[in-house]
């Protein structure tokens, strides 16, 4: 099973979850996360969002994050999918799914991968609003989210 995909196309969370646990009777837990484009009232309605990335580095950064998760928790299978290109509100951006024998490892590894992805994977979002287009600023809370994994 391919662990990391960076793609323009949409993905099917149900199919990914099914594949993660298929034919693995030792997997008792599947934790997963789907990130979506928010309309985000803060800066006015977001009409669309374009995700730019660094081809080549992106896949490598995501693979390294998965390796780190495997070193920290007893996990079985991992799947990370991140889209790029132009996406509309409510469209899917990212999928992270992790299976393990017991739920705590699956939850922790899934959230760890999301937290690291948010600060280490080279993606950049540009929002289109009625007032124009703007690059999204990095959130300080994303840096702080890493502190708990130190």
């Amino acid at each position, binding site marked *: 099973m391919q662990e990391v995909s960076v793609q323009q196309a949409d993905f099917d969370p149900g199919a990914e979850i099914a594949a993660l646990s298929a034919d693995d009777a030792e997997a008792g837990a599947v934790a997963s996360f789907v990130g979506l484009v928010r309309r985000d009232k803060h800066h006015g309605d977001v009409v669309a969002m374009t995700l730019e990335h660094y081809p080549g580095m992106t896949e490598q950064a995501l693979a390294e994050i998965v390796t780190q998760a495997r070193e920290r928790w007893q996990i079985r299978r991992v799947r990370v999918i991140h889209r790029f290109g132009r996406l509309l509100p409510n469209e899917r951006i*990212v999928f992270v799914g992790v299976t393990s024998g017991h739920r705590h490892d699956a939850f922790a590894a899934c959230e760890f991968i*999301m937290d690291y992805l*948010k600060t*280490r994977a*080279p*993606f950049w979002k*540009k929002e289109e609003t009625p007032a124009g287009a703007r690059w999204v600023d990095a959130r300080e809370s994303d840096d702080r989210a890493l502190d708990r994994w130190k």
Partner: protein
Amino acid sequence: MTLKVLYFASVSEAIGLTAETIDLPAGVTTVGALRQRLGERHAALLTAKNLRAAVNRQMCGWDAPLADGDEVAFFPPVTGG
């Protein structure tokens, strides 16, 4: 000594370039020194808030050393996910 330099997102927009190939000037041995030197032509490299860099697709600090053929990238803090 030749380097490939890439720019992304707001940094790329400000500079008006996505990539360029440069001859590494003598005396420039770190990513930080390269930033200073390129900043003479691309002011955004000096003014960008929290500029980040990668060498050969690995995030790095400003003291990271440079070698012939390296791919160096400059970009703002990432905002994926």
